[in-house]
């Protein structure tokens, strides 16, 4: 799902954001000189910030410059050399948008978890006094906001804001603190706020983005399925070729076997060059196996004439195993009754065919053209 370089960068960023979340919570939880922690600052960090970030998440699909922002971040000069190229390469992948979304959720969750852990850590190991201060706002102003914030956990009474507690925990030079104020009682409310607005939504969005990523990976696996890795058939090795002989023509006495049907007009011109055969036989598709055997069993040398363009076949090879003589591939135009030069490609096919047949000589008849 992720390249190792990208995963390293992502882990580094997550760690950095975790430290930032822990540091900011500890900074606020440190409080003032008297150790009092401002409740409203914590609400800014635990509620206002996560809510704004979630809103931004929902409206981001409508922001055209979203990708620009990512690019601006990538282009910042503070990244190590080579890092930008790696991220730009990752940017080309189909799941980049979802990957960015996933990373953003991971960072936000890391931040919220760090805040929560820092809060719990502070509560465990120090006696925290939560107060709030405002020149403009009173407890009556704040209570409805806090109640609205606490709506998601309405079933937890201990974590609900109370008018009484709000009035007691106000820190003001003008109002003297009431004797038995429970300054620490805000912690259940704060933990629930952090969970409801920070941790849980980001956990959900992270799960969703992870699901989307998996879907994308599956879809791309279907599309990138190899068409067929076996789409390879071996190329032939360089063939061994026999030499082409040019016997002295006309031949003294010989028999002729036509493997393919040769036009009658061309037969005459062939005889003019080769010499008239003692016997001519027709073999191949238009002949008969008995005739072929008859031609082979004769004592006179045999010339087998084939159509050069038809690739040599096993049937002819089987026949030639039993005899001896000359093989003469020829090319012609039947309609014009005209000889054609045998192309090198065709001739090489016959040279390859004739190589394992030592008792047969491949010949050509130059005088035909």
């Amino acid at each position, binding site marked *: 799902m992720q390249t190792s370089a990208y995963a390293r960068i992502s882990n580094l960023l997550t760690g950095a954001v975790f430290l930032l979340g822990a540091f900011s919570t500890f900074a606020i939880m440190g409080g003032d000189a008297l150790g009092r922690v401002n409740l409203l600052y914590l609400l800014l960090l635990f509620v206002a910030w996560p809510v704004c970030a979630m809103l931004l998440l929902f409206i981001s699909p409508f922001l*055209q410059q*979203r*990708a*620009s922002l*990512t*690019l*601006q971040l990538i282009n910042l000069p503070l990244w190590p*050399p080579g890092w930008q*190229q790696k991220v*730009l*390469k990752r940017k*080309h992948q189909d799941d980049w948008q979802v990957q960015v979304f996933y990373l953003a959720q991971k960072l936000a969750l890391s931040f919220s978890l760090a805040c929560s852990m820092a809060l719990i850590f502070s509560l465990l190991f120090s006696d925290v006094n939560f107060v709030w201060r405002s020149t403009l706002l009173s407890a009556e102003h704040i209570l409805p906001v806090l109640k609205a914030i606490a709506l998601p956990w309405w079933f937890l009474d201990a974590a609900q804001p109370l008018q009484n507690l709000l009035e007691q925990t106000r820190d003001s030079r003008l109002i003297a603190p009431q004797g038995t104020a429970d300054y620490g009682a805000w912690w259940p409310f704060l933990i629930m706020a952090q969970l409801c607005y920070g941790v849980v939504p980001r956990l959900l969005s992270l799960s969703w983005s992870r699901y989307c990523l998996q879907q994308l990976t599956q879809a791309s696996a*279907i*599309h990138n*399925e*190899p*068409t*067929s890795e*076996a*789409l*390879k*058939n*071996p*190329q*032939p090795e360089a*063939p061994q070729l026999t030499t082409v002989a040019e016997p002295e023509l006309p031949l003294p006495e010989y028999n002729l076997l036509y493997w*393919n*049907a040769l036009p009658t007009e061309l037969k005459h011109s062939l005889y003019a060059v080769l010499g008239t055969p003692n016997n001519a036989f027709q073999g*191949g*598709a*238009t002949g008969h*196996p008995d005739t072929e055997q008859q031609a082979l069993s004769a004592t006179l040398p045999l010339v087998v004439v084939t*159509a050069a*363009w*038809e*690739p*040599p*076949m*096993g*049937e002819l090879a*089987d026949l030639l195993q039993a005899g001896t003589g000359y093989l003469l591939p020829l090319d012609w135009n*039947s309609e014009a009754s005209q000889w054609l030069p045998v192309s090198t*490609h065709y001739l090489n*096919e016959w040279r*390859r065919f004739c190589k394992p047949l030592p008792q047969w000589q491949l010949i050509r008849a130059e005088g035909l053209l």
Partner: protein
Amino acid sequence: MIPAFAVVGHPNKGKSSVVSTLARDDRVAVSMQSGTTQVSESFDIHLGEAHYKLIDTPGFQRPRKLLAWLQQQPVNADQRAARIKAFLQDDSCHQQFPDETELLTPIMEGAAILYVVDSSRPYSPEYEAEMEILRWTGQPSMALINPISNSDYIDSWQQALQQFFRTVRVFDAVKADLDQHIELLQAFAHLHQPWSQSLSSLVTAVQAEIRRQQQHSCKLAAHLLEDMVRYQQRQKVIDQQQAKSLQPVLQAAYYSWMRKRESQAHDELQTVYRHHQLQRDSSELTLSDDLFDTEKWYAWGLNRKQLAAVGGIAGAAAGGVLDLTVAGSSLLLGTLGGGAIGSSAAWLGANKLAKQKLKGLPLGGFEAKIGPMTNRNFPYVVLARFLYIYKLLNQRNHAQRDHLSVDDAQVGKLLEQLSKQQQKPIYKALDRLSRQKDVSNLADVLEPLFIEQQH
């Protein structure tokens, strides 16, 4: 059932070429030497959800003898397929007829027959034995007339083939385009009813794959443009002297990276179109293949006039935004001014290459840097070269095995074929890119240019 097609015929009549063309993949070896295919090779073709098989078979070697063997016993028409099966089960036949055994086995396992002949040579009766054997199999079949070097004897072949096959088609294995490929599948769907549905979905899958290839090509082009325009080479050194002496080294490394990146994108494009074996013949270029020869840029990219016009359009668009923000109270001065600045910048800066910089660092030391490429014509040059290869690959048949020759092409002409509405976003996007601004949907913007290339 998965449709399977066995491509059969006489040796060296283009069977492997037909397989390569129908597979749309050049990894099927095509050889001029007869008897290259000695065993049947089955190629599984997956197109999304659709799947079919192509079987490259050896050519017939002893059809006359085989037919004689089959006819040894008198059999009725309904027993002929069984007779072929008996042949395949006979061990001595395996030894005597290795090629025929190989080619008939997949057919008797259910593959349809694509019988291939060459129309550049006359029909002769020696083909009749093999056609008769194929008829005995009783499998659905189609004859393909492959004009290897010419179509001189198409008529006589058609006459003969129609005696044995219900459907006869002329199919040039090396020139057939996608439409012919689809027509072939459609014809077979009509011919063999049980496969009708799966062949119809196969046709849809082939068309979907073409679309996917086009979209993938757009993405490759977008990534290439973005990478090449944004690339920069940086090196930190101790003193200014060192930084200066490093600059030529950086420049060489920068140019080398750019050339490699472009070549890699062209290779990726070949892979998308499954032209794995194809060699690009760069020596055939009529222009220098040097990406950094700015004199040649006008031939590949936009000429000065076009460049000034595009600069004007992009500048006017930016100025228009200014007019819009002041609700037109600028009397359209933004649009006009932006246009003038854009066009003159494009005119004057047309020959400038990537900038080289040398700067002192805040914490001591120096940095030598080259890039990014801000020249406005550069993205057009890269795009033109990519489009040119795309166009060739898009039209190229997979059985064609000669080298790919790259010729002169000007992206300006391709752009002019688009409507104004399609041109403008491309001009704006490439202008933004050359100014190192983000273009989030570059692949989509380029799409009309790629689809237009098909026609």
